[in-house]
């Protein structure tokens, strides 16, 4: 027998074919379309368009879903469809199937114009109205701004002026923005003010693709669905936490974006602080967007910076060297980078969280380019046992127990603990136990962008940071960035290694060492 809980009435409750017990039925977005600004960008072609195809391929897009491209190119609808077709063929995760393409094909439209072109936005309005008629999108549209933030005010102003931002009764309009969400607190506040002047907070979706990753969501599942971790998840047992995001590549062709931004603004402000918040937060009262956000905000508001920023932060620039068997240029030799640039490509910071749970437990966050290998992980390092009944020689090779969330690549969880080395003597050594999400599992689990775009279309916001979180993150980072700006050149580190000496010294001062991830 099925026992049904009493729930508030929703549209789906009137639908006799829906039942909360029927968990095979996927969440399919209602009729809608998306308008993509910046169709020629890397992100659009490599992530957004393939994700749309993959969603359709898995049967999660509504019939009639339409995609409008907006750019300055002189394209017809067919040219735009061809661009999407090529990007899907090259980058989509699922295999290319004609019938899936047929479902999407009639819904591609292209509008030519730049961001201040009134006539073009008028044309966009007509195009959307036309789609509502011939494709049945019913006035529901998401505007995906895959463009540099300096154009946001123009585009958002135009959307407002042409009545595109206001939904008719019973429909919705949403806006999707990508990082960077500003470059400091002030610019972030300005950006938020610009967006919120036109779109209400619940209609703004900030994409932090890390939060769409299965492994990141699994941090919450691990912590709050189990009993064996939470009792030791506090200052009594945890010595410190290391959060690492290392890239083996340099800045590549992103000189224009990267120089002046740097590692801290590019990655620590958003991804690493979000990972820290998920690792450190208290249990939310439920898993809805509001409760999750509350807990994350509590963590971010209780972060304190160490008093001496010179001793508890480190930054560096990569220099020429050999990485992974290839000779690579240093940051200052990269194309279009001024030789006097003080932009850091490696940043490490020590943060403390002033709560009863975490008092005295440092969180070390580091990110760098051209490091030893590409890896992202959260390592919770535990204290050593208070008393060892073994001799010093027996435990010489025993270090700290650790629990590591491997976010990418090779997603999974590693625990490290001491074990006896087989033999007649008592000798204890560290061993690792790995949980892997299976070899090919990652191929069939949805890509972060798929999950996030579907959530935008469904209007489901738990995985999107809101403006308070963004502003709190900048409040943490601003003093560090200001301090660095006032202190000249960053240190240097050789490409292919694990960052500057200063980062090693920073942990050595606390009697700790970085993990080699």
């Amino acid at each position, binding site marked *: 027998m099925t026992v049904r809980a009493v729930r508030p009435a929703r549209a789906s409750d009137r*639908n006799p074919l*829906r*039942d909360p017990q*029927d968990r095979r039925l996927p969440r399919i977005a209602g009729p809608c379309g998306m308008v993509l600004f910046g169709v020629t960008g890397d992100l659009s072609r490599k992530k957004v368009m393939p994700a749309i195809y993959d969603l359709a391929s898995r049967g999660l897009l509504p*019939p*009639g879903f339409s995609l409008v491209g907006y750019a300055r190119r002189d394209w017809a609808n067919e040219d735009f469809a061809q661009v999407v077709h090529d990007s899907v063929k090259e980058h989509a995760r699922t295999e290319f199937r004609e019938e899936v393409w047929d*479902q999407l094909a009639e819904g591609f439209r292209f509008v030519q114009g730049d961001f201040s072109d009134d006539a073009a936005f008028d044309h966009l309005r007509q195009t959307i109205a036309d789609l509502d008629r011939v494709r049945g999108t019913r006035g529901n549209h998401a505007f995906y701004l895959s463009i540099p933030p300096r154009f946001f005010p123009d585009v958002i102003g135009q959307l407002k002026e042409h009545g595109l931002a206001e939904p008719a009764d019973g429909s919705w309009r949403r806006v999707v923005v990508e990082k960077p969400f500003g470059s400091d607190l002030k610019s972030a506040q300005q950006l938020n003010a610009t967006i919120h002047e036109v779109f209400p907070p619940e209609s703004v979706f900030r994409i932090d693709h890390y939060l769409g990753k299965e492994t990141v969501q699994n941090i919450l599942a691990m912590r709050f669905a189990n009993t064996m971790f939470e009792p030791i998840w506090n200052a009594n047992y945890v010595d410190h936490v290391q959060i690492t995001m290392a890239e083996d590549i340099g800045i590549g062709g992103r000189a224009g974006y990267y120089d002046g931004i740097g590692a801290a603004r590019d990655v620590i402000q958003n991804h690493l602080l979000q990972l820290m918040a998920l690792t450190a937060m208290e249990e939310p009262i439920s898993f809805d967007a509001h409760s999750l956000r509350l807990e994350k905000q509590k963590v971010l508001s209780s972060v304190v910076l160490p008093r001496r920023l010179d001793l508890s932060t480190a930054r560096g620039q990569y220099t020429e060297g050999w990485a992974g068997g290839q000779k690579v240029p240093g940051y200052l030799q990269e194309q279009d980078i001024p030789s006097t640039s003080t932009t850091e490509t490696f940043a490490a910071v020590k943060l403390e969280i002033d709560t009863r749970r975490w008092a005295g437990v440092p969180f070390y966050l580091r990110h760098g380019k051209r490091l030893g290998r590409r890896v992202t992980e959260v390592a919770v390092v535990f204290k050593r046992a208070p008393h060892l009944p073994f001799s010093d020689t027996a435990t010489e090779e025993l270090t700290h127990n650790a629990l590591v969330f491997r976010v990418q690549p090779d997603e999974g969880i590693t625990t490290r603990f001491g074990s006896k080395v087989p033999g007649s003597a008592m000798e204890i050594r560290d061993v690792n136990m790995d949980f892997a999400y299976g070899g090919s599992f990652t191929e069939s689990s949805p890509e972060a962008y798929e999950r996030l775009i579907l959530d935008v279309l469904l209007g489901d916001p738990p995985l999107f940071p809101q403006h308070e979180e963004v502003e709190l993150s900048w409040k943490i980072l601003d003093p560090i960035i200001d301090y660095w700006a006032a202190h000249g050149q960053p240190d240097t580190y050789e490409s292919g290694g694990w960052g500057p000496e200063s980062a090693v010294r920073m942990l050595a001062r606390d009697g700790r060492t970085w993990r080699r991830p």
Partner: protein
Amino acid sequence: MIDLTDTSSSAIAAEFVRARRRSGSPAMGMIMTLVVVADTDDADEAMAVARTASQEHPARILGVVLGDRRGGSQVDATVGIGSGASGERALIRLTGEVTKHPESVVLPLLLPDSPVVVWWPGHAPRDPASDPLGRLGTRRITDAAAAPAAKAKAMLHQCVSYAPGNTDLAWTRITGWRALLASALDQNPGKVHAASVTAERVSPSADLLAAWLGDRLRCEVTRRSSEGPGITSVVMSTKDGDVTISRPDGRLATLSSPGQPDRPVALKRRDLDELLNEELRRLDPDDIYAATAKRMARSGRRAPAKRTRAAAK
């Protein structure tokens, strides 16, 4: 893969451990045991499908082939791990008297404290939950459409003998249809007063779909025949007009609803490994299937008995 002739469960278990050691990876990370009960002819294909599915769900796969019941009792096995798939695999062939006690071979090989799924890719027992191998499983997967004969009747048998944990791949095949029908009704609130399902004359999936619609919509559902392939159309009649999904070619469907333009939607018939993957994703009893099976069993005992008998011939 290592061949073990005239062997036993403990020798097979020992070979699993040796194979893991040899590959240098002592970590297991398997989440379930999948028992595949197959005939000699379709065993290889079924093992290949199970292996594909184990990429998403790392499992110990135990293929059990029940051979000739006559002659001396013998257990042979082919055991291996890795080579492009996660998990462990053993194909166990039984002949002689032991074919009557296959559970005695499988039981010692089940992974500790984790779910057991039993899958019959072809011929399945009439009552899987009381089958000796079926009893070992928390989930039992049959496939009426793959029954060697009398497919419609096979479906009815499965519905009559439903026990929590049973499902049939005929049900899995209609998930796409059900999702599309449900989302069509999200947009068209209004009571459905009649419905129809058109499909090949013999189609366990279409029978289930009709039973599901009847159970959920509480209305008359007509089952019509067409040339196929599979299900070709479903119509739900409301006061504003018909909501129709038609799929003449087994891959691209058209959704028509009152006051809305017709829209194409991909609705491809899926391969066996995709179906098995979907089944393995949920290891708890499927309550909606239970309700549908109950309805089908009830109506099957009444009217369409004639038709199922005709299909049996």
